[in-house]
């Protein structure tokens, strides 16, 4: 039915052309068809041909063959084709629909991406990926992306222009505070410069491998022109709820560093002198304790006897003195009479009388028989008066002692007389004004105010007592000092006002007899204040480890070592390590660095602040505590206490395959102060 027997008998189909005849839908499409622009080209059903003097119909068989009417006399066909309105072909219509849908889609994209902010919320339209769990509360792009505050598409454009990162990172540190802002490693630039210069002088252990040579290109972590480093290059966001932002690939560490290497196994510099050459907080000879002291006492030497993991198991703590060292070392702390604090020096008052200097009452035993100078504590308190300080200095420079003035000059004897009255005046003032006088004199002597909390400790009182009690309770030292005054200088409270009024107070000898029979108190067996009349001295004997009097005076005088006149002398006495001296703190605690600019600070506790580059190294004992095999890493060494830990100790396991050898396994980037806790604004 539908298949022509000849090619010219059927209709001319044009399925691939853009336009088809408008009559095609009615089944009578003309054979001419529209042109490429959809214009009807219909004229006649045929173009008659002239044969001789006659016109013949040329209608093809497909169009019905030659018609019966034949052409008109003028040679035109007698069957004109009615014109039509051509229609698009099916394929063209499909193309039109495709074009329209594409245009509609493009318009929607344009509207959502570049439209007004009210029309589109970037949250709803574009999902850059889920934030990590801790950032999920942030719902507004503009909270982190500065450019997004203007317009959603502005963010994209700003990102493309690479100008967004540092600006955005400023938003990060509004919550994650850092002292140094976005400075690399959170360190002042000068610190990094010093480290860099030091590294430049060190020999490079390895040339960069080919893969690491590409690291700068792969990881865009260079600081900007202001020396600031954005957070994003290392801490990628929008990567999922469970992604760890602190897990950084090695390549992100390499671009900034002078020495680049692929891994711990391959190229990491050898450890230098850790931990044997690092300055320990405590001087403890592990070797001698294992080989000599412990066997002598019949005790087995083991790490766990003195050390235990901290609660976080990252660090290993040393048990306190009371649990570890008391058995052997408490006696060293309380050895001897104690520390001489208040005293009456020996005075050659016969020479003073020969020079017409009356000193009033003074113990007879303090004459030539008692060759004792003022204690450094007394000298310190007396030096609060500049005149007395000058007299003391003059006598000290001349090598003149109060108990031997025979060879002293007239001027020096006069100075000695003034010093004797100053001593009596000190007793008088302390007993009259109490703590206030002590604080005032120490403040003047040190040149700086004392902390109110320091005062109790400086007099041997516990600083744990509430502050409001201090003015109420009569301190022990003052009671002891009052008792000493009643025995040694019973009339001093009457004599000093007379002396200060310019009256002469003559020597009283009866007091000497009284003292000769009154030396009742001896050494205090439990520590604290004790009076020894024979020596005319008030001693302080350490009550045990971490005695607050000793510690307070060591701290106070250590801070003023070299600045306050007599602080150094007291500090040396308190930190002396001679066998017969009390305290002996420096037997175990590291002696302060003499070159320190901040005086001499004794590191009493285990914690200490480390230099910045040291804080860049971290180590957690927890995963390494396998069968308590401490000595697998910490091997004892006779001369150096411990053998240094070498890289091979770590690379036994941290090969990259067996255990992680990522840079951040052992190093911390943020070595400055960087709060990780979210601070909600």
């Amino acid at each position, binding site marked *: 039915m539908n298949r022509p027997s000849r090619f010219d008998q059927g209709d001319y189909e044009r399925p691939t052309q853009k336009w088809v005849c408008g009559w095609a839908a009615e*089944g009578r499409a003309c054979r001419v068809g529209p042109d490429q622009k959809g214009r009807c080209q219909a004229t006649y059903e045929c173009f008659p041909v002239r044969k001789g003097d006659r016109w013949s119909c040329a209608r093809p068989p497909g169009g019905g063959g030659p018609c019966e009417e034949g052409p008109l006399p003028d040679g035109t066909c007698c069957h004109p084709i009615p014109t039509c309105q051509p229609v698009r072909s099916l394929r063209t219509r499909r193309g039109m629909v495709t074009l329209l849908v594409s245009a509609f889609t493009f318009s929607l994209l344009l509207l959502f991406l570049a439209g007004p902010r009210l029309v589109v919320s970037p949250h709803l339209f574009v999902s850059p990926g889920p934030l990590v769990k801790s950032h999920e509360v942030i719902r507004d792009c503009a909270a982190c992306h500065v450019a997004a505050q203007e317009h959603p598409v502005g963010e994209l454009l700003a990102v493309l222009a690479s100008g967004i990162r540092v600006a955005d990172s400023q938003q990060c540190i509004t919550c994650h505070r850092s002292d140094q802002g976005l400075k690399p490693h959170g360190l002042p630039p000068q610190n990094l410069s010093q480290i860099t210069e030091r590294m430049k002088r060190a020999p490079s252990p390895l040339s960069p491998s080919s893969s690491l040579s590409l690291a700068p290109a792969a990881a865009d972590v260079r600081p900007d022109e202001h020396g600031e480093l954005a957070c994003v290059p290392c801490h990628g966001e929008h990567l999922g709820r469970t992604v760890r932002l602190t897990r950084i690939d090695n390549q992100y560490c390499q671009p900034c560093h002078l020495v680049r290497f692929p891994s711990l196994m391959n190229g990491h510099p050898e450890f230098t002198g850790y931990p044997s050459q690092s300055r320990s907080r405590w001087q403890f000879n592990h070797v001698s304790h294992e080989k000599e002291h412990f066997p002598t006492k019949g005790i087995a030497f083991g790490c766990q006897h003195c050390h235990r993991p901290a609660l976080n198991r990252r660090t290993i703590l040393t048990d306190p003195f009371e649990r570890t060292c008391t058995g052997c070392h408490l006696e060293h702390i309380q050895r001897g009479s104690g520390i001489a604090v208040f005293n009456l020096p020996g005075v050659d008052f016969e020479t003073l009388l020969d020079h017409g200097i009356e000193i009033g009452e003074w113990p007879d035993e303090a004459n030539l028989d008692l060759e004792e100078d003022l204690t450094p504590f007394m000298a310190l308190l007396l030096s609060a008066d500049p005149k007395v300080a000058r007299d003391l200095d003059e006598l000290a420079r001349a090598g003149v002692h109060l108990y031997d003035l025979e060879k002293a000059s007239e001027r020096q004897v006069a100075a000695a007389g003034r010093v004797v009255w100053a001593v009596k005046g000190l007793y008088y003032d302390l007993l009259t004004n109490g703590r206030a006088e002590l604080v005032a004199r120490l403040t003047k002597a040190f040149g700086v105010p004392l902390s109110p909390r320091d005062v109790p400790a400086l007099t041997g009182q516990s600083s744990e007592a509430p502050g409001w009690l201090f003015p109420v309770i009569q301190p022990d030292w003052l009671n002891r000092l009052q008792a000493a005054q009643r025995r040694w200088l019973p009339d001093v409270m009457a004599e000093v006002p007379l002396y200060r009024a310019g009256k002469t107070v003559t020597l009283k000898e009866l007091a000497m007899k009284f003292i000769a029979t009154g030396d009742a108190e001896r050494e205090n067996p439990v520590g604290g204040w004790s009076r020894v009349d024979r020596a005319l001295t008030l001693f302080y004997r350490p009550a045990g480890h971490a005695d607050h009097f000793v510690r307070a005076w060591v701290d106070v005088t250590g801070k003023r070592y070299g600045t306050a006149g007599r602080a150094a002398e007291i500090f040396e006495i308190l930190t002396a390590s001679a066998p017969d001296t009390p305290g002996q703190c420096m037997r175990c605690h590291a002696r302060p660095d003499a070159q320190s600019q901040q005086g001499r600070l004794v590191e009493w506790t285990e914690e200490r602040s480390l230099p910045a580059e040291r804080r860049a190294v971290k180590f957690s004992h927890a995963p390494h505590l396998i069968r308590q095999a401490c000595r697998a890493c910490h091997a004892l060494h006779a001369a150096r206490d411990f053998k240094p830990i070498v890289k091979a100790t770590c690379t036994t396991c941290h090969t990259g395959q067996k255990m992680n050898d990522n840079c951040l396994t052992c190093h911390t980037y943020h070595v400055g102060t960087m709060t990780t806790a979210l601070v909600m604004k």
Partner: protein
Amino acid sequence: MISFAVRRWTNLAVCTILSGLGILLYTLSSPALRHSSFFIVSGWVLFGLLIVLALYTVRKKLPFLPLFSSSQWLQFHVYAGLLSVVLFCLHIDVRVPSGGLEIALTVLYLIVVGSGLVGLGLSRTIPGRLTTRGEQVLFERIPALRRQLRDAVEGVVRRAMTEANSVTIADFYARRLVVFFADPRHFWRHLVESNRPRYRLLNELVVLDRYANTEERKLMDEIADLIRAKDDLDYQYAHQAVLKYWLFVHIPVTSSLLLVGFVHGLVMMVYYYAFRGGTG
């Protein structure tokens, strides 16, 4: 010559291997990498695959190009399309996307895949059906054939009026057959292969038999044949139209998908290079 069965199993095997490879890479990649490198790579691979799939329609418009046969392109189109489903699932991490752009992209992809599967089903079932009813005709030629049938039936009606001198057939034609022969009829009934309209019309013609004379009965037999021919032609039209018109969904939505996919890729690349950092 590779048999159809061998070719199908070979294609399925290749498709399965590639899908397994993708799933393996997805499984081996760490969760962090899934959100960075794997998704970037899988996204662009998927986009490239969609581009190649879309080129099939271009290839059909350029039949003179010696770039494999249309049949081979169709084979590739079908199996690569199935592979893209696996890749798409891995790319979206087998979860519902969150952003509006991503949801739109997913919907568009599902429409494209759905229409493609529908088209695949149609191309597998309709050709068989077309051989069962009437003569296979060119779709573009159906209007002309319909007109021929209409002219034929009108000729029969005229003969009935002149030769049989009766208006019974003319009345029936005016009442029932004018509309039937004017346009394609019973489109959806033909798609579900229902013959009820055809038999109803023929039954109505049979009912007229008691009122017709001998001449008219002969003419009514001719009309019945023409009704059957027209009904077969409508059957051909309905099925061929479906084969043509499903592409009105598949191709335009594909273009929209590619456009949105490209924008999605650009945005993700910007985000990726801006925020990926060293994490992971």
